[in-house]
């Protein structure tokens, strides 16, 4: 196991692991734009549409007396048939009233069905090279050769450079398609390029991840990365890292246990990263938002309690009283302590300051920070504070 992760399992396994890592990086990057463009499922249609091409390529190569297992030939067939599927999808969505979701469903199932039928025919052929073709369904790195891994590496590098080259139009198309068009880039060509890149990733990834699950390698890293950052460059970078790690760890694991299909393992590793992101990411993660929620609730209760104190009103809510007692602001009978009195006076003063800031357009930026909690001194200069304080006419605290 450790040996596998440290690339100590021999030359071929090392090449395959590095190839899978590169594939993961390329898929993470290409998938980010697909995800941001909200067309994630198009990749599923593309990948399923490869199957008839694989089977047909095998039949053609065998019947011309060639090697039916030539990876290059099979992938070429896969690419042609995936491109055909993509064209069908494009035609259905632009020329009919069918929505993209329905069109994806139609293309995906029809191509996959056709592929399965052709694969069954292949199995009945009397040539004896068919073994291994089903590896394209779920991925298998067992029989991979050095040349296969090199093909993967080259394709991944090409994809990465293309994305680097086209990142601006891709970003525009994902955020604001009409604006992309007015910036002089044809949306049709941007989408064509985006889908072309996804197609290349899908086809070269077939042997490693398999056509059923390659969609996960494209989408999961991007979705996970979104939890960690609010910038699109950041999403691309983190998706590349997570995708690369998924490919690397998954392929290494699969080298240790060749009986297990590679694709599902890579996807499960990616899923583990997703769960970690979902739970632990700062700001957007589940734990962070639960924590923030309770912290926020506590602050709101304290603030409301203090304002009630300052205005001499009773505190009705039990939770408020409990929180304030714990913070040492009130005694069990609801009477303010010395620190409670000081805090209450400060709370009321701040509230008055905020109401002036919020009423004045010249403080627009600061005013948006009003949430009943934020410390006002952090957003105003001392001069501004003096100006605001000079304008306070609201009642001062009782204390």
């Amino acid at each position, binding site marked *: 196991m450790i040996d596998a992760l440290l690339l100590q399992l021999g030359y071929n396994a090392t090449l395959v692991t590095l190839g899978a890592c590169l594939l993961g990086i390329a898929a993470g990057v290409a998938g980010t734009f697909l995800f*941001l463009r*909200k067309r994630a499922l198009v990749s599923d249609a593309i990948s399923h549409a490869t199957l008839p091409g694989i089977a047909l390529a095998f039949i053609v190569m065998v019947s011309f007396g060639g090697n039916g297992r030539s990876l290059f030939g099979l992938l070429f067939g896969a690419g042609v048939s995936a491109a055909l599927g993509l064209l069908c999808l494009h035609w259905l969505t632009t020329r009919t*009233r069918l929505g993209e979701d329905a069109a994806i469903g139609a293309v995906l199932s029809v191509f996959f069905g056709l592929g399965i039928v052709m694969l069954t025919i292949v199995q009945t052929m009397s040539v004896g090279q068919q073994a291994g073709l089903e590896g394209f369904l779920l991925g298998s790195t067992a029989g991979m050769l050095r040349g296969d891994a090199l093909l993967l590496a080259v394709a991944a590098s090409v994809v990465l450079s293309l994305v680097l*080259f*086209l990142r*601006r*139009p891709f*970003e*525009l198309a*994902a*955020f*604001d398609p*009409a*604006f992309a*068009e*007015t*910036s*002089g*880039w044809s*949306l049709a060509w941007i989408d064509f390029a985006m889908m072309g890149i996804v197609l290349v990733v899908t086809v070269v990834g077939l042997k490693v991840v398999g056509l059923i699950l390659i969609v996960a390698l494209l989408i999961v890293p991007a979705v996970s990365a*979104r939890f960690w*950052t*609010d*910038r*699109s460059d*950041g*999403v691309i970078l983190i998706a590349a890292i997570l995708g690369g790690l998924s490919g690397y760890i998954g392929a290494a694991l699969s080298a240790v246990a060749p009986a297990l299909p590679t694709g599902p393992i890579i996807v499960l590793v990616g899923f583990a990263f997703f769960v970690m992101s979902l739970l632990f990411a700062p700001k957007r993660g589940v734990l962070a938002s639960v924590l923030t929620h309770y912290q926020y609730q506590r602050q709101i209760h304290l603030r409301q309690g203090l304002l009630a104190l300052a205005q001499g009103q009773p505190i009705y809510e039990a939770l408020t009283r409990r929180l304030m007692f714990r913070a040492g602001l009130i005694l069990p009978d609801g009477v303010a302590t010395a620190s409670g009195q000081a805090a209450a006076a400060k709370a009321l003063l701040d509230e008055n300051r905020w109401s002036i800031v919020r009423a004045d*357009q010249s403080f*627009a*930026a600061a005013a*948006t920070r009003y949430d009943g909690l934020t410390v006002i001194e952090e957003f105003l200069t001392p001069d501004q504070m003096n100006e605001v304080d000079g304008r306070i006419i609201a009642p001062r605290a009782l204390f």
Partner: protein
Amino acid sequence: MSISLVNDAHNKNANLAQSVSPLAVHGLTVSYNQTPAIFSVNMVVHPGTMTAIVGPNGAGKSTLLKAVLGVIKPLAGSVSILGKPLVKMRDKIAYMPQRASVDWDFPTRVIDVVMMGMYRNLGLLGRIRASHREQAIKCLNRVGMADFATRQIGQLSGGQQQRVFLARALAQDAEIYVLDEPLAGVDAATEKTIIAVLQELRDSGSTIVAVHHDLATVSDYFDDVVLLNKQVVAAGPIDDIFTEANLQATYGGRLATARVDPESVAI
């Protein structure tokens, strides 16, 4: 003056702008599934003016803008920018789409959105330099949003989002500004800021074309108006065209619900 017929208005405008109109549209028809959204629209915009496109819901206002910008392919007709075909003159037009047209949870910051306005000049690989960032901050400053430069766009209010979009259009550094409902659903302060920026642009020689929904403010803000309901009902200077009769012809029975302020309508 009473109702102008389509062709009258068109011919008059065409004569006035015989030199070079920044934006001229001839016989433009766009249809979705055999139903025309706009039909045979003629429109000539004068240089250095603010033109409002006004009409009821479904009149094809946004469609007209999109066709003018080449985002939608028209079924018939042509668009010329400063006397030349649109494809050669894209750089001269800045565009501000409707706020609702994008995903505000998109992972990007205010300043990144403004930088998008410079992409067409930067090209695919042009380096973003400090001068570009300064430029972007300047654009944000003009709309009073410089303090928000590093905020995630989802944290902005509707009016602020609209101002960021205007800053991006400013960053496109164009001669013609095409805006789709720049004042829809914004607060009063934003409305004031946006109008002030647009008037500055006009006074420095740029041309503004905006879809506008609020009949009460059309004559306060704009120089010319195009009344649109699939076809151009009337077009020309506000004082001549923005009449009760023309509005009736544009909105039909829906005028009552459009709430016209009687004093703002020229009689």
